[in-house]
């Protein structure tokens, strides 16, 4: 397409803008938007929850999740916590990349993860919550399946991991409120590795 005088006039007519966004602000804003978009009940455990969501459908889902574990997604690790799933395998969760517009909240979140995380998490309550409001998997053919004991793609270990994630999220939320933070908005990421995960190939 041959450019002409009009093209130059049109190019120069753009209003001047200032979009020098700080990378940290953009990153935090993206996290805030994600929390806004995801149902509030699961917001505090989003990052871990999404990984477990892949695990819950079993089979191919496990492989997908494995490819991503310890992938560097958590760039500033805070701490790890471990637990045992019904099959006897041990799972370890790496937490980190904690951000908040309130530095005191971020510090409190980091302190929580560095402490006795599993000691404060009510996993039984997390399981009960999941059974009352079970996750729904979208299968490769587009159909959906409610993941409850007895359903085709139900995975007891995966359900337990999700329950732990929910319980930890609830414990963290309660901890922050106990400290007096009324709107403890924060973003934290996590990655999970279990002793019975399939090998991650050439990772």
């Amino acid at each position, binding site marked *: 397409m*041959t*450019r*002409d*005088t*009009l*093209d*130059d*006039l*049109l*190019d*120069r*007519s*753009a*209003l*001047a*803008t*200032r*979009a*020098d*966004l*700080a*990378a940290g*602000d*953009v*990153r*935090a*804003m*993206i996290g*805030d*938007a*994600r929390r*806004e*978009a*995801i149902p509030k009940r699961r917001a505090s455990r989003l*990052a871990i929850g*999404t*990984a477990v*969501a*892949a695990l819950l459908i079993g089979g191919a889902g496990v492989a*997908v*999740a494995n490819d*991503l574990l310890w992938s560097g*997604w958590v760039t500033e690790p805070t701490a790890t916590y471990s637990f045992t799933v019904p099959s006897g395998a041990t799972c370890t969760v790496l937490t980190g990349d904690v951000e908040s*517009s309130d530095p005191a909240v971020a510090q409190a979140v980091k302190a929580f993860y560095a402490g006795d995380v599993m000691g404060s998490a009510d996993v039984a309550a997390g399981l009960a919550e999941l059974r009352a409001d079970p996750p729904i998997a979208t299968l490769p053919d587009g159909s959906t399946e409610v993941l409850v004991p007895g359903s085709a793609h139900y995975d007891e270990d995966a359900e337990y991991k999700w329950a732990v994630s929910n319980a930890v999220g609830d414990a963290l939320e309660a901890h922050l409120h106990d400290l007096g933070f009324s709107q403890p908005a924060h973003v934290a990421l996590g990655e999970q590795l279990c002793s019975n995960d399939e090998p991650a190939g050439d990772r």
Partner: protein
Amino acid sequence: MTRADDARLTVALTEASPRLLAYLQRRVGHDDAPDLLGETMVVAWRRLGDLPGDPDRARMWLFGIARGTVLNHTRGERRRWALADRIRGQVATDAAAPASDEGIEVRDAIARLDPDLAELVRLVHWERFSLVEAAEVLGIPASTARGRYAKAKDELRAALGVSVASP
């Protein structure tokens, strides 16, 4: 939704945000642009399952969402997004800088075009999209975009009294 999708959208939003904000500033002004950027991000997360796999197409997809927020804005649907507070103060300071008057006559001529033609011209010349990319943002076939673009330029040449001579 998988973690891979989550990561891809995070990357796409991170890379596109400066251009999205500039686009929104040109459409709705410096004051409201941060809110619409916030709304764009929220809508993008809600539609994560529709995120294209190709990074360039993902960028177009985000601009399409941003355009939707602009259309809602012009219909009077406004919402203050707390998450936009992070950049609102910074942009408000920047807004004190006077806009260039150099192109005011041209901008007025663009504004008098049919809205579909005007948006196509803005996407190509202000946001520096190719015609194919602009067509994708607008959700129209590339052939339709080419026809509209030619019509828009004919009307602008007439309105501005510009010859076809090369610079």
